């Protein structure tokens, strides 16, 4: 187990720049997800950590020592892929023992380790089975467990569950997370799926166009995205993002979009007073952070209901306020009808503002945000 440091790491394929100067420090025993759409550089980054790709510039360090001159074997990195390629004629036990036998471990050490890993991965009852008799979920767990037997310095997971069916995926997430916590390994997960990243990682590195956009806990990237890309990539249903200008109305500073006017949330008032807000902003508000119906009260806007999707535990309403499409999640019950007018109010403490030019988040002075207050209440 080790820390993994990336310092201004670049990867060029000919003229194509796949990774453009990534720096991050992964802590010992931490679970970090590299998250982004295809072509964002996440897989290249992982392959450079593993030593499967040379780096074009920069440095990669395990426990502070540069590893870029070491071949993959000498880095003691374990990798688990979606395609686990088990040995079908061997038992689960022998599959798990295989890497340890190849490393000439004594039998009693192998036995102890195999049983330990199998128990944590909840496959201890399957040790005598042949892998050809396993369900796909069980085979997946055996594949993961096998990669863990050797006590790697760093454990890399390349989209391990992206194509597993929905049911199984929920269980796989639980097992993988528990494995990581119990073993205390430094793990790096590569995925394009924001839900997998959120569910599993201690911190998420959101990547786009070869650059690191944000590195933060799931709560940080969800509640305080650094730019509109991160805001839009994280969360389902997606965040509402719409352009507004800062205007004056009735002696107050407000957010205005055509005929719609929203009160400036309190946490941004110090910036208004200091005159540091740009004139044009993009407002971000998650569908969970709008109040609908009678509770909307002061500052509500009227929106016409276009589509209501009842999902059992929640309902997603797609509505239009003027020409602004807006999605809101409401609890089940009191289902609005199509073409009905509903009152919607932004929950001010959750409203995010972005500079429309730079697309970067405008930070409210500290202590003003809902999460900061909630965190303070927990301490």
């Amino acid at each position, binding site marked *: 187990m080790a820390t993994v440091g990336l310092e201004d790491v670049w990867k060029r394929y000919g003229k194509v720049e796949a990774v453009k100067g990534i720096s991050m420090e992964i802590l010992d025993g931490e679970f970090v997800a590299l998250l982004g759409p295809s072509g964002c550089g996440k897989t290249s980054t992982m392959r450079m950590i593993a030593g499967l790709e040379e780096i074009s510039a920069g440095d990669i360090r395990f426990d502070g020592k540069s590893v870029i001159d070491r071949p993959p074997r000498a880095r003691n990195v374990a990798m688990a892929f979606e395609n686990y390629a088990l040995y079908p004629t061997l038992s689960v036990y022998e599959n798990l023992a295989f890497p340890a036998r190849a490393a000439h471990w004594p039998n009693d050490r192998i036995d102890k380790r195999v049983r330990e890993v199998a128990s944590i991965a909840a496959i201890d009852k399957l040790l005598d089975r042949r892998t050809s008799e396993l369900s796909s979920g069980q085979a997946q767990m055996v594949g993961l467990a096998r990669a863990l037997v050797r006590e790697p310095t760093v454990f890399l997971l390349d989209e391990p569950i992206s194509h597993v*069916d929905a049911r199984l995926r929920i269980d796989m997430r639980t097992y993988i997370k528990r494995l990581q916590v119990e073993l205390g390994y430094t793990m790096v997960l590569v995925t394009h799926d924001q839900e997998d990243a*959120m569910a599993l990682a201690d911190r998420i590195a959101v990547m786009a166009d070869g650059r690191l956009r944000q590195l933060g806990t799931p709560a940080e990237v969800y509640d305080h995205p650094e730019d509109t890309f991160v805001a839009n990539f994280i969360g389902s249903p997606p965040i509402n993002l719409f352009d507004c200008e800062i205007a004056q109305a009735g002696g107050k500073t407000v957010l205005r979009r055509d005929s719609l006017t929203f009160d400036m949330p309190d946490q941004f008032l110090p910036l208004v007073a200091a005159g540091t807000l740009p004139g044009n902003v993009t407002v971000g508000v998650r569908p969970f952070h709008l109040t609908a119906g009678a509770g909307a009260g002061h500052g509500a806007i009227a929106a016409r209901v*276009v589509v209501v999707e009842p999902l*059992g535990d929640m309902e997603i309403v797609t509505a239009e306020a003027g020409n602004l499409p807006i999605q809101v999640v409401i609890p089940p019950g009191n289902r609005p009808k199509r073409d009905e007018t509903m009152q919607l109010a932004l929950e001010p403490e959750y409203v995010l503002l972005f500079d429309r030019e730079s697309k970067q988040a405008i930070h409210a002075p500290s202590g003003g945000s809902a999460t900061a207050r909630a965190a303070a209440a927990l301490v």
Partner: protein
Amino acid sequence: MLELDSVVKLFGTTVAISGVELSVRDHEYLVILGPAGAGKSTTLRLIAGLTKPTRGDIRVDGRSLLSVAPEHRDVSMVFENYALYPQRTVFGNLSFPLEARRVSRPEIKRRVESMASSLLIDSLLDRRPGALSGGQRQRVALGRGLIRDATVYLLDEPLSHLDARIRQDVRVQLKAMSVDLQSMVIHVTQDYREAMSLADRIAVLNQGRIQQVGTPDEVYAEPVNEFVATFVGDPPMSLLDATFVHENGRPVLKVAGTNISLPADELVGLVANGPTPPVLRVAARPTDVPVSATETKECCIPAQVYVSESHGYRNIVTIKLGDATIRVAAPPKQIWRVNDPIWLGLGMYNLHAFANGKAIYHPSVSAAGETIRPQRSFTAASTTGN
């Protein structure tokens, strides 16, 4: 009205469809929901006439379709593998069904552009299918299927290859469009959210048999058996083995592998007595289980956190309850760590009960659709019947 009457389909000795009874109303959006291999696509192909039933009948407005050739059934089908014309552009693929029906050129242009805009492919009209991603091709296939008038639209997993984000957008567009379609739509999917979102009614299919037909609310709140209960919902309900006994003269439910006994007056008369007692299981929707970091009146069952996952708007916490495991959805603010103590609330106010796999009891649902959560602890004597 479209009716499937005792339809059986065998492939050799394999039973694909096993006596399906289903009627689809005019203008209805019916979603067939089930896992891979349930017989969903076979059902669509039978309706389209691409394959014939081994037994049974398929009727539209009382007239059998069996002797009607596929091209005369006035059915428009969207295939999961797209089946686009590779030599035609996206525009050409979308316009094809209209050209074949001699629609005027300006009308074709108007309808193609409107459909392309709804499905977010309006920038791709000049491309050929070979230059499109899987998700883009799937949207072209969906548009081509919906662009012409038909008595029945058959959609075979029409959103399965779309990225999560686009899938949601197209789902909303499809729902908005479906209101204007004056025809019936039969849509097949493995995704319960897609089914809930779009359907007037859902037919849950498993192993060639219809498990339940009902509105999304019915299927979600009152699943008829363990299969439906666990197939619908994310995360799924966790089934707990249980026994129903009398303790000190009171009816109680004992949860296997734990020392929990819950008052269960509601189950009196519902669990059959006899020499072979039924296999009893109970389960709660993860969103119906209250949790707390300390013991409260409502949350009085002690347990341990196994794993907690962040999902932004909520945390999914997997909990060890003795030897049993249960998943709950908890508010996002509280952070749970492995092996933290956690207190939860379970009782007949949030548990569904199943005997030999079949539902015998559902918690009461108020008119507002929310599970009633009475202000009482599970040891209290009062009850809230169904």
